[in-house]
């Protein structure tokens, strides 16, 4: 009898341990974050991602729409590439909205010079191509930019997406082209003190779409020497 109660107590103990570790895993370390039903990946290339860690949140208008998976360093451009997972249910249009967006895009196309110059058959093809391109779009437009932001004065760093006003939307898996890296207070102070002499960093802040060209020009002098 004595051994049966002790076995029962040990069983309860083990169950308690199980509950505790489940709590620590799910609630405390947030391992649940990976089971977004409709998820997709996107990347962005930053000049400076100081303070961003894997699992940092990605917010659009303050709402968490995704998280950082990993951060890699491109050996040639020496820029940091941030790989992110987005929640599809928050960053896609529903069918009606998609229809409207597509109509707007087609209308926009009809006013373009190329479209007016083309014959009706080509126009049809252009419209079809446009609509085909829009099958897996997100609600993040091409003019939107993504920046490293801070939660409060001293809080965690996270990525903030600021929508642009464009009619062209990024597709799932695309790269967000417009980025702004971490703003270092020291850099700002240096810039202020030296009267803008340190504007090298502000030029590089916008690592825009032609980053490969930027990298080539940056690399060449080193090889020439």
């Amino acid at each position, binding site marked *: 009898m004595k051994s049966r109660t002790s076995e029962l107590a040990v069983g*309860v103990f083990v169950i308690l341990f199980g509950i505790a570790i489940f709590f620590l895993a799910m609630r405390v370390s947030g391992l649940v974050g990976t089971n977004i039903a409709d998820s997709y990946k996107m990347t962005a290339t930053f000049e400076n991602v100081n303070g961003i860690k894997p699992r940092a949140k990605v917010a659009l208008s303050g709402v968490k729409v995704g998280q950082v998976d990993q951060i890699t360093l491109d050996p040639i451009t020496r820029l940091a590439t941030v790989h992110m997972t987005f929640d599809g249910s928050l960053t896609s249009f529903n069918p009606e909205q998609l229809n409207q967006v597509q109509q707007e895009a087609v209308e926009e196309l009809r006013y373009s010079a190329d479209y007016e110059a083309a014959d009706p058959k080509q126009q049809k093809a252009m419209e079809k191509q446009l609509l085909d391109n829009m099958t897996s779009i997100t609600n993040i437009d091409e003019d939107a930019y993504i920046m490293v932001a801070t939660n409060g004065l001293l809080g965690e760093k996270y990525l903030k997406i600021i929508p642009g006003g464009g009619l062209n939307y990024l597709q799932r898996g695309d790269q967000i082209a417009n980025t702004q890296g971490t703003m270092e207070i020291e850099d700002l102070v240096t810039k202020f003190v030296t009267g803008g002499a340190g504007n090298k960093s502000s030029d590089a802040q916008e690592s825009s779409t032609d980053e490969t060209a930027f990298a080539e020009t940056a690399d060449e002098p080193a090889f020439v020497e």
Partner: protein
Amino acid sequence: MNAIALLGRRVIERVRGIGVATLMLLQILFSVPTWLGFKLFVYQMYRVGVLSLLIIVVSGLFIGAVLGLQMYTILATFGSEAMLGTAVALTLLRELAPVVAALLFAGRAGSALTAEIGLMKATEQLSSMEMIGVDPLKRVISPRLWAGVFSLPMLAVIFAAVGIMGGKMVGVDFLGADEGAYWSGMEASVQFYKDVFNGTIVKSFVFALICTWIAVYQGYACEPTSEGIATSTTRTVVYSSLCVLGFDFVLTAVMFGGV
């Protein structure tokens, strides 16, 4: 001359003690498990683990509550109460849960193990077991050691979980920090592998081995007198506490120092 001889004898005795303890540990670790051994292990698990549960849960709750209180007042000065969850969870998982659980364990279970084994030795139960052909190492020491090694990590995890709840109770429910920020800050900064697995489980596993090893060895090697048992019990608690604190520094430096 006599003093030097005494010193030498002391040193030789200590070194011999370390050797005996290591051989004992190796003999237990590399012995074949048996069904009877498992049953004894379960019973010891009850005595070492389950009976320590109450003190672990209560101290976990209060330590979490104090952490919540202190951290809240400090963080509120900088207007960053949102970091409360992060601070409480990381402090508990990385340091307080393994260390405090091990210290309590050494006091609650380690001393009891030493006293029990020591009394067995003083009343010559261990020698009589040897006489009838039962290996006291297998019958008495091994189940106790294994029970200690397995139960302390479990206790530490429970300690951490209860502590986080205690911190939430004081910080969020009493003092009014934001509950969403408490949990989300925690989720954003605690990594399961690094903090929960490495910080709590691996650390307390090492502490468990040290504490129980010291406890069973001190009992096994104690002088078979009532005074000897008292000395051994004291030594268990003192040595275990010192070793836990020392190893904690080493382990923290290895796990979190080089980041």
